């Protein structure tokens, strides 16, 4: 995609989303610490994945609101950009925010359990967040009921990614395999759903 347009759209999103990003980062840190009291490990992994996917849904919703309320973003609907180009540009800042949320969660967990939370858990969590995000980005473009279904689908995809990574890690007893497996699921689902989000943007009729 043309880098100038991507950079311009991403900058406009940063201007609109930084307050919500700050709130989500603090919330993620606190929640990340709180989740560490859960037992057993599988429950913690599921809770982490659900939390990051929830953050992805909130960011996606805020991103949709920013598109509607930002006078700069109002120009995008009239700009000669393909849906897939807008999808990629739209996803950059929310993806950075959910990754930062995963890092904040990791930092909170490290503080709570004094270093017992492994990097593998963080990597699986981050992959789960990036799996959920492209699905969640479509939520603001849908009717409330369809949006709810998309939100549930995003959370389910995040759970699937985390569960698959954990299962591979358990069966192979390899951290690298666990991380690779979760990233592979994130890339596979993320690619398809980002393309689908681009198609949705291309067909979407932005009414005033």
């Amino acid at each position: 995609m043309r880098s100038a347009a991507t950079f311009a759209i991403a900058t406009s999103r940063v201007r609109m989303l930084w307050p919500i990003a700050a709130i989500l980062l603090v919330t993620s840190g606190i929640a990340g610490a709180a989740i560490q009291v859960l037992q057993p490990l599988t429950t913690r992994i599921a809770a982490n994945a659900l939390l990051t996917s929830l953050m992805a849904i909130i960011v996606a919703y805020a991103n949709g609101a920013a598109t509607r309320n930002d006078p700069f973003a109002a120009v995008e609907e009239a700009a000669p950009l393909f849906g897939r180009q807008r999808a990629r540009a739209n996803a950059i800042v929310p993806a950075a925010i959910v990754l930062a949320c995963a890092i904040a969660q990791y930092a909170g967990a490290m503080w709570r359990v004094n270093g017992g939370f492994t990097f593998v858990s963080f990597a699986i969590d981050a992959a789960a967040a990036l799996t959920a995000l492209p699905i969640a980005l479509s939520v603001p473009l849908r009717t409330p009921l369809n949006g709810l279904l998309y939100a549930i689908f995003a959370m389910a995809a995040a759970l699937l990614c985390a569960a698959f990574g954990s299962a591979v890690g358990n069966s192979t007893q390899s951290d690298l395999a666990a991380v690779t497996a979760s990233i592979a699921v994130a890339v596979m689902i993320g690619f398809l759903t980002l393309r689908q989000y681009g198609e949705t943007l291309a067909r979407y009729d932005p009414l005033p």
Partner: protein
Amino acid sequence: MAILDMREATFCGRKTSAAPVTIALNESERDDLVCESAFAAAVAARLAAGIVKCTTGVVFVGGFDPKIQPVQAKRLTGFVSHVGPRTITNAAAYFAYRAALWELDRPSSIAHGKALMKRFDGLPSGESIALAGALLHQPLLLVLDRPDRLLRDAAQEAAPNAALLAVYGPGEMPAKRPNADLAIAGAMQ
């Protein structure tokens, strides 16, 4: 070939619909369209600008169908919304943003935008920025969503060769200034 060719174009959404619109505009031609409601006017303006796709009928902008070739159609169109960009106060940032989205040279776009704004004497700042922004890429078709008289006249004078469509809700169409027809005739010659 008409710059804007709308034939029985309708839009049916979940909560709204726009009546069939038929318009053909060539280079330098101007037309005003009055719709049954302000919302229908906003939808009709977006239909003409290729932002919203028609449900039935056809719309062509410079021979391109916005349903199939939205990027090509939008390259030919300048659109001034009723709200949105009119609230912008930082003109240079807005022109730079548009330059990035339309693949224009940034410094020359900012300079061009500011030069255009100087020509819009009497226009409120927000409207002036919005109109100058819409004219940056020198569109063949200019669509104005419920403009006031000043904005319409300024658009007409700034882009004499572009086809211009102004869309209004009921009772929103401003009276023409006394010598408006003369000015249009002069611009077309």
